[in-house]
């Protein structure tokens, strides 16, 4: 099976073009959010702005790689993980499925 087409193999995505690099994205459930700002403090990508309430910084200022540190650190479970970081062409993800939490298989 060929995982990368010739075009994909030879094309390095531009990191300043949202069409070639989709950054990760999280959303905030403002009803659960207690405005503690922990998400913004732990974010390694400096992707979350906090001025009394959290919000995602716009492209390409933020570097969200969908690590989930904000979601894990949030004491109120108010972070919703929406979109993983997806680079296209040469760096396209292969075989990635849906976004799921750890599953306890019992059968």
């Amino acid at each position, binding site marked *: 099976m060929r995982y990368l087409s010739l075009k994909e193999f030879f094309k*390095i*995505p*531009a*990191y*300043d073009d949202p069409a070639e*690099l989709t950054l990760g994205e999280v959303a905030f459930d403002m009803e659960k959010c207690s405005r503690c700002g*922990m998400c913004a*403090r*732990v974010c*390694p*990508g*400096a992707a979350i702005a906090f001025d009394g309430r959290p919000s995602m910084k716009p492209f*390409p200022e933020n*570097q969200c*790689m*969908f*690590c*989930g*540190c904000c*979601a*894990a*650190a949030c*004491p109120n479970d108010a972070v919703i*993980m929406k979109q*993983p*970081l997806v*680079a296209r062409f*040469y*760096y396209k*993800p292969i*075989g*990635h*499925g*849906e*976004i*799921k*939490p*750890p599953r*306890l298989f*019992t059968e």
Partner: protein
Amino acid sequence: MPEIQRKPKKVPRQERIERLKQGFTETEQVILQRRSVRLYKPDQVPAFMVRRILEAGRFAPSAGNCQPWKFVVLRDEKVITALTDDTVKLCDILRNMVDYRKPGAAWMKPMVKFNTRIRKNDLHPVPFGAMAMIADRKLGLWHKAPTVILIFADVRGVSCPELDCGIAGQNMVLAAHSMGLGTCWVGFVRPAFDYMLRWKKFFGISYPYKFMSSLAVGWPVGEPDGMVERQTHAVDWYEDGLKKVVY
């Protein structure tokens, strides 16, 4: 004397299976709840805990049991700061050579894309962004962690010593998280060992040792560990003469 249990407790298989259906095992919980911690309290980690973490690394599996690693524990704030400063400087130089997103640097784009082909791992979009953030001091290197463990590989090891170092490192990471500590894998200090003789000299690193990666270890601020969602991956599954793909 505290009790050391040398062998796993004997539990009948059926009972084990029934227990698994009730929830994740303790080890699974540590694995699934481990998050990379990038915000540490300034308090030092007790030395005995670091020794215990190193024990977890010492008993990692390695090819041919060759144990091709060397760990260096760094708990000297001045040294950590100096090494961080030098890495930030190097990141700034490297960033200026490759960051075509800054104003007036669009002409560099084709050249950088060519370099990306050659150094596809170093110039992957994620470290590409991280390098700029480290250079701007928006992202700490070890995030002010009070203890750092540097991992060096003995390049003469059996098969793939780099992989063995990774296994030992992850053993240490999981041990640390089971103790309530936070950790973060940090590979960005590599340029300091690649390009600056003084750090190789300082740590007495020469052939056959090669810098692999490092771990920041410390007490986390807040409670950063916890389960999160992430992508599932296609797994090919061969059974009964058939192939299926599970996620």
